[in-house]
């Protein structure tokens, strides 16, 4: 169920982020952060939409769930990542 889960939308860089953001909103995706420098949006769906439905928006190349957390180990650990 996509509602409430965080997703990251990656764009191709060939279209204005503002235009894409408007269309994301029309497709039920609420943008939390616009990462201008890398052409990505993070946010969540307002309802149980199919994440892949966003790929029909021109300029959108990927929609993925929030990446798995990374961990380099506890404080003062001698072995890391």
């Amino acid at each position: 169920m996509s509602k409430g889960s965080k997703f990251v939308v990656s764009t191709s860089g060939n279209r204005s982020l503002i235009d894409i953001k408007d269309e994301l909103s029309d497709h039920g995706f609420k943008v939390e952060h616009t990462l201008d420098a890398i052409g990505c949006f993070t946010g969540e769906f307002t309802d149980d939409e199919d994440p892949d439905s966003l790929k029909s928006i021109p300029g959108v190349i990927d929609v993925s769930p929030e990446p798995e957390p990374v961990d380099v180990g506890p404080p003062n650990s001698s072995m890391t990542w």
Partner: protein
Amino acid sequence: MATKKTNSAESASAARVSSSVEELLLAALERGGDSFETGRYLVTFKEEAIDEGIASLGVQGQGMRVADARDFESQTLALEEVGDADAVVLPEIGVALISGEAAQERSMSMFSSIASESPIKSIDPEYFVFAQDAYEAYYQSKFFQTGQSGFGENLSSIARILEAIAKEMHGTNQPQLEAEEEAMVLGATWGLTACKVTQSTRSGAGIKVAILDTGMDIVNTGHPDFAGRPIVSQDFVGQPIQDLNGHGTHCIGTSCGPLSPAGTTPRYGIAYRASIFAGKVLANSGSSVGFSVLNGMNWAIAQRCEVISLSLGGAGGPVPAYTNAGQAALNNGLLIIAAAGNEASPTGQPANSPTIMSVASLDQNLTTSNFSNFGKIDIAAPGRDVFSSVPRPTRYGIKNGTSMAAPHVAGCAALWAETSVSLRGVALWNKLRSTAKHLPLPATRVGAGLVQAP
């Protein structure tokens, strides 16, 4: 006078009996000075008067709210559960831990005079205790090399003798050994020597290096080896920038540490004049939070950092958003470098993105470290027994991992970027690979080989 009181009152209120070690450490660093005190006090009772002593803390005597270990199952005291108690008593050993505020309110300190009939034997400050292995490793000879043979533990004695002679000849007002002479005598870490950093005339001047990690030791006066060095920092995890993990400070040390560290410490850092950008994308626990890594990458690119280093990652295939970030960096003439990982498995993300340079780890004999990931590997660098800076008061420590290899590449990348304005993004990537020292090992293990400085 009023300011002093406020500061000490604030400080005392941070030293609660339920405070976490992190809170205590941060407060102590903000206070400054060389003291290792936590701000709390330990009251030791006379053996024959423990019960009387415990009673004297409560309503009958000092009026403190007292938590007793006997109230917990098997006397297993969880300090976080004592809430706003002023004191916690450990009756089996006859000791009570007193909060900073409670001690201050009653003018308790190590200088308090204790009446002879008092049940109290002594009042002492509580001190932080740190793991000793960092100190022991620092004095081991194998981490230091001069150009010829390893002088090892004699290095520091030689340096001291030379300093003493210099002082004798020139008087104590003369600056001590010139930086180059010091480096020659004191040597450098094996990693810097292997990467030919010590022979390089470059410093990374004018180049911005972003380290996306657990932050940096910057609070108050900051780590002494970075005194006066401007550090641009940004948090992405909802915590102060102050590195309470150690990982971030270690990586910044390797990539950007000073030419001549304090005292007799050997050189451990590469781009000593690069501009440092510390993005805290990992919490003090070592873990990322939400989209912190992606947000950090976005920030570093927006800041136009020519070199962006990530000593972090996880299992799994390439993450499209990270690949996007890597591409955006290259499009802007910037380079993202990431550690391949320590799982002895295929390279993890973000390093496995085709647009991000992945770094494997080498041991001192230039074979791949047994933990180093493989497969998509672009280049290799020292990652075993790497000596570098860690947060005060420990100051220096040894760590292992591709996490330590990546900042070697980042530091060398900054030196190369300094040599020419055309060495940016893809061109810088290609230069690092074409100048790497070839190793008789598969490219899936070492990529183009051992990174070399210009």
